[in-house]
């Protein structure tokens, strides 16, 4: 009954979601001690999830791309597969997911597709979005920085291939701290990157899309 395998999780305010391929657990982390279990749900081949930005609401995506209703959600991409850990919530009510070789930007409430860009990944990937920049590590392409200011015209600003092409030596894990990007790779190294000014996020994004 434990949450085994994967343990991808994220936090929003006092809520923390932990999940793997078939189960999602919601914790309360407001207290000073251990996280308190609030809720648990089972899914069929869950891949990823993200907070919608409203307290207590989150949205999920499964392998087949079908809609999974968790109070508020939308279809990710019918018939296509969302990459593990490949979703993120952006500003202005946007939802980003890495889906079958594409970075897809959707309206969080309606699910309407706002734009797409190439994002080649085969086994694993991770995505973070800060302001008008999306940072992804993709097992086939390396670290890619996107300009998502206008979702209908997403631009690739930077492409940093993995140090080696071996699958297990590719980038894995990404964390942005100001103008510094920290990235680990599977064989056990942490690299510190200087993020140039034009790749650092600025909060302004186009409203209303």
């Amino acid at each position, binding site marked *: *009954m*434990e*949450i*085994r395998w*994967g*343990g*991808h*999780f994220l*936090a929003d305010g006092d809520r*923390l979601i*932990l999940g793997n391929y078939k189960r999602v*657990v919601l914790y309360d*982390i407001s207290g000073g*001690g*251990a*996280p308190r*279990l609030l*809720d*648990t*749900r*089972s899914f069929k081949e869950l891949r990823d999830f993200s907070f919608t930005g409203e307290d207590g609401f989150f949205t999920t995506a499964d392998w087949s791309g079908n809609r999974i209703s968790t109070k508020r959600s939308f279809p990710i991409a019918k018939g296509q597969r969302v990459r593990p850990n490949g979703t993120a919530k952006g500003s202005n009510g946007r939802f980003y997911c890495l889906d*079958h*070789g*594409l970075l897809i930007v959707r309206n969080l409430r309606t699910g309407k597709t706002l*734009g*797409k*860009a*190439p994002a080649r990944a*085969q086994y694993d990937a991770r995505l973070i979005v800060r302001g008008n920049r999306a940072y992804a590590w993709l097992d086939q392409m390396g*670290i890619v920085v996107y300009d998502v200011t206008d979702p209908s015209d*997403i*631009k*690739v*600003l*930077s*492409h*940093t*291939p993995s140090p080696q092409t071996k699958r*297990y*030596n590719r980038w*894995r*894990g*990404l*964390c942005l*701290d100001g103008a510094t*990007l*920290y990235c*680990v790779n*599977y*064989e*056990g*190294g*942490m*690299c*510190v*990157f*200087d*993020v*140039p000014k034009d*790749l650092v996020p600025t909060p302004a994004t186009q409203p209303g899309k």
Partner: protein
Amino acid sequence: MNRFPLKLAIMIVSAGVWCVCRAEASSDQPGTTAALRAATQPSNTGAFRSLRPSSEIDELVRSLQASDPSERIRALRAGVGIMRVDFKAAVAACLIHEDGEVRKVALSVVLPSRVKAGYAILAAELAKQFPKYRRGGQTENVIEGGMELRYPAHFISTFGILGDSAIPVLLEQLKSDSAVARYVAVTLLGRSGNRRVTKAIAALLKDPSDDVRRRAIKALGILGGKDAIDALAAMANSRDEQIAEHVAIALSANRDERAIRIWTRLLREGKGKYAGFYAGRWLREFPLKQSVPLLIEALSHRTRYVRSTAHKSLTMLTCRDFGYSAGRDGDDKETAARRQKAIRAWSKWWDENKDKDRYQILLTALKHNQSGDVLDDLKARTFLSLVYLGDTRAIPGLLKLYDNNIKAIVPNEALNVPWVLRNLAGRHFDDKAAWGQWLAKEGKNLPKKSTLSRPYNPLRIVARATIAWTAEHVAIDGELAFVGTRCALEVFDISNRRAPEIIGHYDLRGECQGVGQLLVRKGRMFLSTHAGGVSRVPIRPAGQY
């Protein structure tokens, strides 16, 4: 008469099954059972007991360098499980201490804690202790044999990332009397990626052992850089065909054109059974004008493997095959007649196409291979070649083929025209009209090379840090970086981001099967593990690790 106990047994079993199913079903509902609640509560409160203050590890490192063997032994026993790089290097050095007891205890520390630097020395020691592994006098077999005692041979390949503190230990090993030790050390130094060791490795090009010389050539090829390539090129005229072949491979891997001369010599004048054995494989790394004529020539080579790889390279470069196959039997069986026919076809084709760019050749091949909705191997290869070539001039030509390939699918990749266009242009459009509009607008400003097929405005690495285990995730909190690995949580001080330093270590081995993900929110860190559950880990100020 006996029916009653049977019925009772069925009822008891049914009730048991019902209970189990009920428990399973109820656990999926909100408001879970106490069992689930207990299972998902943090269970590894004792998981971080092995965290040691930095000062204590410093003291242990000093003790490991002490002259008194008993002090070293005490430090070795006290430091089991410490993963800090300088500590591991000091442990590794104890493996070759003159005192037998120190060596024995060091070995007992290295084996379970997987001290990478220690493996180099360990392999050499094992080779000495287990001479039965000296199969055929091959050094490589000795090492692999030795490693098989406890670890798989492929573990050697994971020595790639070495802490800087391990490099002096390995450099010392280069001077060892043991060929095995020199062999292992030069292998690992080659994989270190540290070009400061180039000179030391180049000195081994005159080593008395053939194995060590070959391994030094390979290491220089992996390291690359002007010094390494020049050292290799100086050996291009070696009369030893095997050494010349290794030099050619190393130069080819670095796309150095001096390799072409060596391959030509080996293919035309080589006397040994395996002379030019890898020519077919490595010639494909060079431009068509240099590689294709030689590869066509290699189709007549006396060795079937050379003919086979040469044909494979020609197919990869040009996406044509002219019906030739170098198989042993069946439909693919190679015959002299088929070979001669293919050689004539290749030669004629090359005469007609030698002035074309590779992307023009690929586009021609694509038209030639156009056979239907489903891609055959050659067409799939053509698509992939276009993407990896990254020449954006192919975009207008591909757009003309758009409608013919919509349904073309190859397992794992949607290899069709839209896919290739997407990866060449770095854009996505849903239909041909949208692509056409974009091309009309942006076509003149397109860069010659695709932004996605090569490093494009790449991020600049300002620092690297080494961790002993496969890293999974990283999280930042102020001046601390936490890196979750397969068996530990490493704490880095990143106050100087150009020199991150490990200051703490939470050992999770045997308790959680590795870190899944890390999350830092408002000064609180949460950690999920592959064993299950989420734990809250206290974040201390940098000085308290």
